[in-house]
């Protein structure tokens, strides 16, 4: 296992990548929008304590995230991004759907360049996609910190 992940996608992320690959380009943005809409709201304990969230300044619109590793070593992810930022919410929604509840090792094993496998580069632009890679990098860093 390397810092940037082993290069294989976990089954949930693979399914997401396949879903994106299976729809024509014209529908990929709508799929991303569905992920934006499915992003769970921030639990109340974080709403009351925004200081517990880490900002991801690499995203075009401010995004905040929190990472919790429970007693069974399962990782839980929490995101907060404004409604007017559906792209950023969509990225967060993909990471939530693909990673929430997995083990710390599985998350650390996720390829850092995973976002490039969704076929969104030309639709969203590489600059915007960088935001998703940055979210993943920060999630991994927090997982590592909490493991130690």
């Amino acid at each position, binding site marked *: 296992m390397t810092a940037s992940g082993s290069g294989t996608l976990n089954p949930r992320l693979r399914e997401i990548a396949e879903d994106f690959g299976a729809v024509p380009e014209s529908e990929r943005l709508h799929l991303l929008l569905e992920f934006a809409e499915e992003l769970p709201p921030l639990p109340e304990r974080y709403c009351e304590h925004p200081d517990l969230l880490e900002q991801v300044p690499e995203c075009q619109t401010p995004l905040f995230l929190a990472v919790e590793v429970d007693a069974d070593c399962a990782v839980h992810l929490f995101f907060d991004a404004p409604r007017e930022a559906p792209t950023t919410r969509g990225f967060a929604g993909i990471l939530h759907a693909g990673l929430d509840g997995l083990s710390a090792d599985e998350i650390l094993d996720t390829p850092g360049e995973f976002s490039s496998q969704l076929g969104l580069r030309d639709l969203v632009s590489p600059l*915007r996609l960088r935001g998703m890679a940055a979210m993943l990098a920060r999630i991994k860093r927090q997982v590592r910190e909490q493991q130690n």
Partner: protein
Amino acid sequence: MALPSDYAPKFQDYARPQMLVTTEWLAEHLEDPGLVVAESDEDVLLYETGHIPGAVKLDWHTELNDPVTRDYVDGAGFARLMSLKGISRDTTLVLYGDRNNWWAAYALWVCTLFGHPDLRLLDGGRAKWIAEGRRMSTDLPQRPRTDYPVFDRDDAAFRAFREQVAAHLGQPLIDVRSPGEYTGELLHMPDYPQEGAVRGGHIPGARNVPWSRAAADDGTFRTRKELEAIYQDEAGLRPDDDVVVYCRIGERSSHTWFVLHHLLGHPRVRNYDGSWTEWGNSVRVPIRSGETP
């Protein structure tokens, strides 16, 4: 065939009142043939969540920029894009978007380089339309394809390149970034990604007027009197000045370009789209840090 102008009283004080329309005007003319409304946002998905009925989407990142060279599309690329969107050379094109029309003004400036004759901004943009409870739609418009003619891009009048900015030193420059970016304390916008400038500060002589000061709380442009107070009384511009505006990649400064050229009537205003991501990375160009212009 161009649509009639919006004769809203506020606009009549501006140098070119025909460059703006109100939400009322747009609601009334939405079905008129000869009109195309285009939404241009920072977020590439915002349009999909709902837009003004019939509006097409125009994305600055993926559509107005050349995908390889750091430049805008060429004449053939622009003609292809306009044809695809169902826009003709004689279409009245009304642009609007999020964040005080930040990206809509950028799209309008790029369209200006191709000389599209009738371009207008929706005063107040997306936020005002929504705040007034006006109709939104998620339906994608099916506009018949047009055959937009190829017009070469003409950069001379409204676009400045680095060499021209270097030759312009000593004449009026407006840096529209946030104060922190201007002084060199920040290398990027507050809360925004680092876009890779290796030096902080501003172009010597540039006055700092953050772009959003031209917008009122509801996202509409400030009145002519208010704009004159900001740009002329405060920043010292004279009506006949040759002005260069810049920001980070030329998008925020498009908004100020619109204000200075179309609303205040400065005859020569150029947008330096290379902006800080070019100047702040260039070898041996003069840079000033701190608050002194």
